[in-house]
């Protein structure tokens, strides 16, 4: 009898290594994804036309211009790929030269425009104008293409 208990009580151990592996992979995935989406997606209420004629976004290379919303339809600044640009002529100049840089690196680039549905047109018109000017001064053969980002009804209804 004493021989049975010589090594102490039987120990049951689960092998935790695969679980830790998986968990680490998930953590790394979410760290990377949240960094990417922070650059591109700013919290705002996108326009929600219904029924919409918009199309799902393509996988083409793109740059995202966010018009950061303020209170009462105002805008705070513009953000392109994580860089902030002030409202007004100086910021617009900066935005233009940044878009020209991006266009010269990749002429096929698409520009996505995200703006809050309450933002007034006087903050958005300069962006459209700037992209047009940047496209023509970067010597592209075709006109600039811009994507207006909207949200579809189905997904915003369950917020």
């Amino acid at each position: 009898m004493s021989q049975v208990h010589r090594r102490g009580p039987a120990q049951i151990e689960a092998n935790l290594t695969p679980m830790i592996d998986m968990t680490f992979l998930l953590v790394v995935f979410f760290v990377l994804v949240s960094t990417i989406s922070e650059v591109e997606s700013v919290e705002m209420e996108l326009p929600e036309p219904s029924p919409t004629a918009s199309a799902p976004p393509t996988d083409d290379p793109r740059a995202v211009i966010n018009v950061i919303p303020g209170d009462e339809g105002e805008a705070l600044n513009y953000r392109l790929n994580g860089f902030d640009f002030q409202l007004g002529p100086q910021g617009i100049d900066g935005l233009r030269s940044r878009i020209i840089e991006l266009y010269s690196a990749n002429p096929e680039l698409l520009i996505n425009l995200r703006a809050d549905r309450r933002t007034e047109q006087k903050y958005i018109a300069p962006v459209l104008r700037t992209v047009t000017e940047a496209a023509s001064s970067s010597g592209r053969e075709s006109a600039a293409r811009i994507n207006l980002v909207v949200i579809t009804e189905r997904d915003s209804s369950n917020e």
Partner: protein
Amino acid sequence: MSSRRDRAIAKRRIGVNLTPMIDVVFQLLIYFLLATNFALGEQVFRLDLPDRGGSQQTVDPFEVVEEPLRILVESSSSDENGLRIRIDGPYPQPESLEQLERFLTENRAEAGIGYFLEDHPVDIVPNESTHWGHVVDVFNATVRAGYLKVRFSEPEPMTP
């Protein structure tokens, strides 16, 4: 003698206590699960911006310049009821987006007995304080009505 000592050494395993690490990793996992916000449900309108003299364009001297249909958009508040639409010209004025879309569809030459071809230019003319959502709503209605050349005009200065 020596084989027994070897066995004794082999049994004395060096173990790292992984429990705190797993705890922390799980905390991180849950944090990122909750904090990550995917851009679900986002769609896009593709818009070709006008070419402003960047490249040489050939101009057809016999081409008749078509007068664009101008749709003026104003907002009095940011919700759906705050949208005011006015069509420039001797047309019936739409009260709502649905009426605008019906007007545009019925007056398209392909769809009804209308004045406008599908590539007739349509200008969306907001003023400075028009909300972006309303501009996109009108754009959407025009695209749904089947027009191919829809443009955004520079915002008009506010009329007192």
